[in-house]
């Protein structure tokens, strides 16, 4: 069992990484690229049945800062 937490900067928050990456993509010939955002992907191996509530708590308190980031939790069985 695995949990994948994706943490992305909130839409209104500046994402300099994303902006720099978009710029570089254009240089590499992907002219039509729109907005690019760079976040984190955290893969968590879980031996037993996942405690989803706990995982949400951890995603919110440890893996992201709700002031500037949103997270999504996905359980892969």
């Amino acid at each position, binding site marked *: 069992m695995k949990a994948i937490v994706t943490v992305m900067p909130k839409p209104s928050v500046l994402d*300099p*990484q994303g902006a*720099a990456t978009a710029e*570089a993509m254009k240089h*590499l010939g992907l002219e039509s690229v729109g907005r690019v955002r*760079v976040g984190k992907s955290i893969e968590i191996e879980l031996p037993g049945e996942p405690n989803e509530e706990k995982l949400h708590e951890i995603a919110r308190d440890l893996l992201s800062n709700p002031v500037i980031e949103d997270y999504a939790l996905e359980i892969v069985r």
Partner: protein
Amino acid sequence: MKFAVLRFPGSNCDQDCIHALSTFPGTEADYVWHKDTSLGGADVVVVPGGFSYGDYLRTGSIARFSPIMKTVKEFAAAGGLVIGICNGFQILCESGLLPGALVRNRDLHFLCKHVYLRVEQTDTPFTNASTKGAVLNVPVAHGEGCYFADDETLKRLNAEGRVLVRYCDAQGQVSDASNPNGSKENIAGICNEGRNVFGLMPHPERACDPFLGSTDGSVIFQSLLNWPTSPLRKSAA
């Protein structure tokens, strides 16, 4: 000898490199802008430290695509001398001029302090003024300086004598305790197959002035200046 110090947006050791070079008689050093395509007839290219393009995404990953790097690759392929310091080392790895990659320090923190380096090889343009086994006191300042390469690459680097400096203690002992960032086999700097491209994480330009605590870094620049007339050059050729 003429040096070209590259300037990417976000380079911040470019001025330091120019200053350090200016203290050696017989050097001439100029900036070369990242959007340029000419090295202005330089004998040596210095890729300085800093945070090129903010080091966003991955250190050195965006700089590798800049116009000047294409020229630097051609220059290196023709045997030109290239030295990459810190972010410059990262850029050289990303560009494929050197093997391996630099990843986040083992303890996850940026680390600025003096470390010791053991000189492993002296038959190169970058280390010929030193002696095998010499211990140099030179600072590091990086967050992503942990050298990584797969086992096969490491084997080759060792077999071909391409690891030029390793982290060690004051006595020259290479151990885990003297490894500041978790680099494989304490590797601090390597050269390419042609031995004309050198990358290292420590900052020799910060150790060329007695007021800055150490002058051990000057041996690297002195080596470059000695190279044209070095007996080692002949035997290498």
